[in-house]
């Protein structure tokens, strides 16, 4: 037998632990059966040396056969490395045998390895080891250094990005409520900021108010890491009020309202531009948030209007209802629609009503008109008394604000147990009713104003003064007649001449027209006091008196008032001058010498285009107080038509009488 004898040692046949776990559970290797053990043992017999002995014989025969034919120079190089390879392989084999031996020996309890000593290192080996370790250390230092610098750069960028973000967030926080979802932040890895636009104090919790879906706005990052807010397009709806049939009447005018809305959308687009500065960015977001807040408020206003319109307590004004749309009728003539529209829908409705789209055609009860002809539209609106829709849109918002805010304030004070002042709290069912009545009042008072204007246009000595009432359901005007200064001065001369009759002649007469809801009341000093007339009192100064009247009767009544004022004034002047005169409702009678009576009579005609008050001179022996004058009677011996006289002319007529009368 050639080759070395090899010895292999078996493990002692005792139970050996394979592994033990943390909880103390012990794992043993599988029990191997007796036969298997035998087979394993046979496997361990190494027959390699036998095989090798046979094989090399074959190999050598082959090599010797081929080597003679091959060129030796070619194989020299491969032969050199081949020996190195073989040496290394043998070394490897020996090492593995040794390691096996050591492991086997170690595995046995009975034999322990006492120790292994490295062979003493040669100095060059020592140096090379040192060199290698130093190089690796330096390498790792450099690596670390690079790491640090890279992370410093990354941190700097992140810090700059976050500085922009948080700077913008702080600016927003000064105006809006910025909150944070901590759980969401932990889950999603984002910061979880959001802007809360709802205000708990403004809305009554008892009512069916739910916070709008728009009131929570997530704060996000845009591409550059800057703060950005993403809102779905066209999600915001704004309150829109319209008088049906007159939608284009006021659209021709230059209202900034719609302009502002488009401006904010423009700025919203600008924030998406890459090079928008931080300032513009924040301002853009501010305006977006403002828009959303206004839209939320308008939604609440519309909610309230909806609820009140559908409640049975409202006097049946509701004539149409759709999603986000309500139509109410005011009186028999006008209809108003309240709707929630996306801002560009507003332009569409104005254009649509011009083109008579099918939706609007049914709503236009008052006929169509050319949308381009704004002038005609406005004229028509004026005649019907239709007011400007923007004003009432604002008023509706204000009413809601007072309602919500006062309610919340009272709710707050209520919690302290005090009774809230009820006069300022509007009952919830009254907002829409009050609003509709305000519109009705405005339409009516516009008509009244038209009448007054037409009267005053044709009566040059009357001034129309508006008297603001600061109430939405009452309006007041004053028709004032001022005696011109020239007459007053002339009159004062007479006062100095005549003896005893020192009276202060009134220089101003006024008539007040008060419209509350749709009732007209005419007030004025010097209202015809029948008792005073009978007594023949010169100073017929009466207390302020008033009476109601219709719109149809208003012109006549006002003209009569004015004419009676003039008569009064002439009467007073006559007395100052020293003429004997007596006054009737609309006539002033002078007693001439010989007992003749001449009357100056006023005739009022509201439909007369040239002037409303005309004067007649009637000469009669008998005072004709009951005599009625008709314009078709014409002039006669006893009647002379004087025409439209100004106050100066009237006064000089009076002075003419002075010459005729016996003083």
């Amino acid at each position: 037998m050639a080759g070395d004898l090899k010895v292999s040692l078996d493990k002692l046949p005792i139970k050996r632990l394979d592994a033990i776990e943390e909880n103390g559970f012990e794992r043993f290797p599988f029990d191997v059966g007796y036969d298997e053990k035998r087979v394993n043992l046979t496997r361990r017999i190494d027959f390699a040396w036998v095989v090798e002995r046979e094989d090399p014989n074959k190999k050598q025969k082959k090599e010797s056969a081929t080597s003679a034919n091959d060129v030796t120079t070619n194989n020299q190089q491969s032969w050199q490395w081949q020996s190195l390879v073989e040496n290394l392989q043998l070394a490897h084999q020996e090492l593995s045998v040794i390691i096996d031996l050591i492991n086997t020996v170690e595995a046995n309890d009975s034999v322990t390895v006492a120790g292994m000593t490295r062979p003493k290192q040669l100095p060059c080996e020592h140096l090379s080891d040192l060199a290698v370790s130093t190089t690796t250390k330096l390498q790792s230092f450099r690596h670390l250094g690079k790491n640090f610098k890279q992370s410093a750069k990354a941190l700097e960028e992140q810090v700059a990005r976050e500085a922009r973000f948080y700077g913008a967030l702080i600016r927003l926080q000064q105006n809006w409520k910025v909150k944070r979802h901590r759980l969401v932040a932990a889950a999603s890895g984002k910061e979880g900021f959001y802007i809360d636009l709802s205000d708990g104090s403004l809305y009554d919790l008892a009512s069916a108010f739910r916070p709008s879906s728009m009131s929570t706005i997530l704060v996000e990052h845009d591409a550059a890491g800057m703060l950005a807010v993403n809102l779905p397009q066209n999600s915001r709806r704004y309150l829109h009020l319209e008088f049906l049939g007159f939608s284009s009447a006021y659209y021709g005018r230059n209202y900034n309202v719609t302009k502002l809305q488009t401006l904010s959308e423009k700025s919203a687009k600008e924030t998406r531009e890459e090079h928008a500065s931080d300032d513009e960015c924040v301002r853009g977001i501010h305006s977006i948030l403002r828009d959303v807040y206004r839209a939320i408020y308008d939604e609440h206003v519309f909610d309230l209007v909806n609820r009140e319109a559908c409640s049975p307590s409202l006097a049946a004004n509701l004539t149409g209802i759709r999603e986000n749309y309500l139509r109410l009728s005011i009186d028999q003539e006008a209809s108003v629609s309240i709707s929630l529209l996306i801002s560009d829908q507003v332009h569409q409705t104005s254009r649509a009503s011009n083109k008579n789209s099918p939706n609007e055609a049914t709503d236009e009860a008052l006929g169509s008109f050319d949308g381009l002809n704004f002038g005609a539209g406005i004229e028509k609106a004026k005649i019907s008394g239709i007011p400007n829709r923007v004003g009432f849109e604002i008023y509706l918002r204000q009413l809601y604000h007072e309602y919500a805010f006062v309610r919340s304030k009272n709710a707050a004070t209520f919690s302290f147990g005090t009774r809230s002042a009820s006069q300022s709290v509007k009952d919830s069912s009254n907002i829409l009713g009050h609003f509709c009545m305000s519109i009705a009042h405005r339409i009516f008072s516009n008509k009244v104003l038209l009448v007054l204007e037409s009267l005053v246009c044709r009566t040059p000595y009357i001034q129309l003064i508006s008297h603001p009432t600061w109430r939405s359901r009452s309006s007041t005007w004053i028709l004032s007649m001022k005696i011109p200064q020239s007459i007053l001065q002339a009159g004062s001369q007479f006062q100095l001449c005549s003896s005893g009759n020192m009276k202060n002649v009134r220089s101003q007469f006024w008539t007040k027209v008060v419209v509350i809801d749709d009732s007209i009341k005419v007030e004025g000093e010097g209202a015809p006091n029948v008792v005073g007339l009978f007594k023949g009192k010169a100073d017929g100064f009466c207390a302020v008196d008033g009476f109601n009247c219709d719109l149809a009767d208003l012109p006549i009544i006002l003209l009569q008032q004015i004419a009676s004022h003039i008569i009064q004034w002439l009467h007073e002047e006559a007395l100052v001058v020293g003429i004997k005169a007596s006054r009737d409702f609309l006539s002033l009678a002078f007693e001439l010498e010989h007992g003749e009576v001449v009357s100056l009579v006023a005739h009022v005609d509201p439909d007369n285009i040239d002037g409303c008050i005309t004067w007649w001179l009637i000469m009669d022996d008998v005072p004709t107080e009951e005599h009625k004058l008709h314009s078709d009677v014409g002039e006669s011996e006893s009647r002379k038509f004087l025409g439209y006289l100004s106050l100066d002319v009237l006064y000089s007529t009076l002075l003419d009488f002075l010459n005729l009368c016996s003083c």
Partner: protein
Amino acid sequence: MYPQSQTTSLQRLQNVEKRIVRVLELAGGVMEEMGNPSGPRKELVNGSCGEFMQSVKDIQLTLREEIKSACEYRPFEKCDYVPRISNEICCKKLEYVIAQIDEMKQTIEGYGDAS
């Protein structure tokens, strides 16, 4: 919220962040210097380490102060949403009035032209 101190405290915190970046850069520089094949330059390393320690101390001081002076969190006591909406309504009123006045001006100018 105290606006004027908030910006400065924000600035201080931002300075802290910048300092941390600087500190990291210093560490990187020192490491690279140590990895220099010709050996680290003592004065550079000493200077950087000194700056590092000083910065860390400053950071610690600033953070401690900021934490102490952080104001109590009172959630939205002075929410101004209600006056905000009343201001928005006033804005609309003003726009309306301006439009009316513009119209009046145009009318007056029209009369001026006519005369």
